[in-house]
């Protein structure tokens, strides 16, 4: 359990939440959970109102020019904030690895510089908790069998490594089981899921088979987008297996379900 009075320990930390467009519109419970976890460990959460989307879908589908106003908007929205937390490995990776590039495509060196500065103080949720706050036990209680899919961009672009698992292992009551072939892509891939639906579905079928082998009640991940895909397949096949974002598991306590 979390030691008493965490706020005294971390009360000085303020962080801006980058909700991400998908979470905002489709799975808002992930952002609510992120707020709950952060506040529980004493972080004052701010919600920059001008934020929208990181533009990753535009860049990755071949429309970096269309992403220019999105990067501009993101930089304007988060410019005054010292720490930015994102409940998505993929969107964090876009901010770190794409934003400055998009700004340079616009020929805007000042924007590129500002984007780089923002990227340097942007963290994916597990990075923020483990690296910035030095917390692994957030006082969560989740008495279920869970298997964790590491998601490609968290794994290979951010290299978050063991951080999400460290957080999950500290959850009271959790029965965390290893996912066979965890590092294999689930087949989401953004617009890949629409442009190559057959291949995407074949990859999903194998991921679902791996999830089922674990006997888990929930498949967890740090990206709502991958979970939308995995969960969409689990639901279509009426497997009875649910999905939970890392933040949702960490937000659940004995008192607050």
């Amino acid at each position, binding site marked *: 359990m979390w030691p008493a009075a965490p706020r005294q320990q971390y009360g000085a930390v303020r962080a801006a939440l980058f909700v991400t*467009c998908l979470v905002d519109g489709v799975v808002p419970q992930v952002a609510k959970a992120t707020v709950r976890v952060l506040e529980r460990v004493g972080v004052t959460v701010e919600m920059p109102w001008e934020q929208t989307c990181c533009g990753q879908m535009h860049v990755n589908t071949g429309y970096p020019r269309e992403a220019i106003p*999105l990067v501009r908007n993101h930089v304007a929205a988060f410019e005054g904030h010292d720490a930015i937390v994102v409940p998505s490995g993929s969107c964090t990776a876009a901010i770190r690895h794409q934003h400055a590039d998009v700004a340079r495509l616009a020929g805007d060196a000042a924007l590129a510089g500002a984007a780089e500065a923002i990227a340097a103080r942007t963290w994916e949720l597990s990075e923020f908790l483990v690296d910035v706050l030095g917390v692994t036990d957030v006082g969560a209680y989740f008495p279920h069998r869970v298997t964790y899919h590491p998601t490609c961009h968290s794994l*290979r672009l951010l290299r978050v490594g063991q951080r999400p698992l460290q957080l999950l292992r500290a959850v009271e009551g959790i029965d965390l089981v290893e996912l066979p072939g965890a590092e294999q*892509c689930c087949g989401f891939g953004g617009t890949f899921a629409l442009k190559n639906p057959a*291949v995407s579905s*074949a*990859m999903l079928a194998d991921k679902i088979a791996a999830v089922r082998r674990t006997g888990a009640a929930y498949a967890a991940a740090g990206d709502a987008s991958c979970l939308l895909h995995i*969960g969409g397949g689990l639901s*279509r096949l009426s497997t009875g297996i649910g999905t939970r974002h890392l933040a949702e598991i960490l937000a659940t306590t004995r008192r607050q379900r």
Partner: protein
Amino acid sequence: MTFLGMPTAPPGVGQLRQEVPFPVAAARALEDSQLRRNLGHATSTIRAKRAAAVAEVADWQELRAAGAAIKDDVLAHLDRYLLQLEEQVTARGGTVHWAGDANEANQIVAGLIRATGQRHVVKVKSMATQEIGLNEALAAAGIEATETDLAELIVQLGHDRPSHILVPAIHRNRNQIRDIFLREMPDAPADLSDEPVELAAAARAHLRRKFLAAQVAISGANFAIAETGTLAVVESEGNGRMCLTLPRTLITVMGIEKILPAWRDLEVFLQLLPRSSTAERMNPYTSMWAGAVEGQDFHLVLLDNGRTATLADPRGRAALRCIRCSACLNVCPVYERTGGHAYGSVYPGPIGAVLSPQLTGVADNPDLPFASSLCGACFEVCPVAIDIPAMLVHLRSRVVDDKREHHHGPTPEAAAMRGLAWAMSDARRWAWALRAGHAGRLLGRRYGRIRHLPGPLAAWTSSRDLPRPPRQTFRDWWRSERPGEDGA
């Protein structure tokens, strides 16, 4: 950006272009349960072996960096190194030919063979000659070429196409190979079983006769040393050694990017290549030669075929570092399921998805840069550190730009992207768009989840449900929960 002026690989010859759009070819391949089993087994086996072979090398990351740096130097000074190579090969009794594209290369090789009076040649496995369709061009000129690599022989006898860079018959299992041998190899024993030892013995006996009769051999090259004029072929079966030494005339067709500056650079690549490709510490046969020995002729055909055009794109040129190890194919979740034929090119998988469209120009391979979930497994294993995912993203923008230039008015996708970007570049507009998305709640009212989406989004619900949109977006929740904190 356009890359006019640099010729790309010509159409109508060789094998670099998709005939069927990738999503369609892939969907068909996915239905082939035999293919899925063969590929799944083969790729997972070699993947584990490669990981073990690489883990033995403590300075693997430094080797990768060195490999990338050496190749980048070659690409930056290709003009100089090519002339140096020509000079060295010529000084050692070889003849160098320059081929701008597949047609020129095929003509040069056919002419050289014709001059020998021979009508039969043996071949070492070579990607460059597959790329330019040399066997077909030679057949049209009345010359029969025999592939001597076991897997290439299986492909050739099966009237098939290679589906993997290193293991061209990876899509075949031993039952299928037995059938091909019995059908197409007149000297195969009638009681041939599907035991690998028996299959290999049958092929060996068949090929031995070809080796001893051949007067002309054709090879590719893994490396060419500019400093010394040395050509290198690495292989596992010894067929290459036979071809490179027995016949009177040797013709080597090589992409211009295969150069290494100096002899000592081989030290890096002879570690990187075998461990990445066959998961061996060292490949069984490494043949090297410089020029021609007395009584033999050596011709080197330097092939461009779209490589200079590839070099012209600063964000795409690193694809020319590729040493054809095929590690990226073996780890690719897309390749593992579709196999190589779906890509339409002799270069399948992740490297093919970035190389083929650059060699042909993106207009001729517009689907390939999109044939990836951008999972990044390829970049992780690439022995010359080609950032394939970033390059795929870049090439996607070239495809989009090409369509923008050549289509009247925006494509529906471009219009949707632009509309979305307009909505997303302002928080107020975006909040309105999200609220409009609530209409989607209607679609999910029956099951509590959406089972059928309209239009292009139907591809999503072909295999996946979508949760019913929430009553309240996050920002609306925040506004209602925390009045005064919304900055409005």
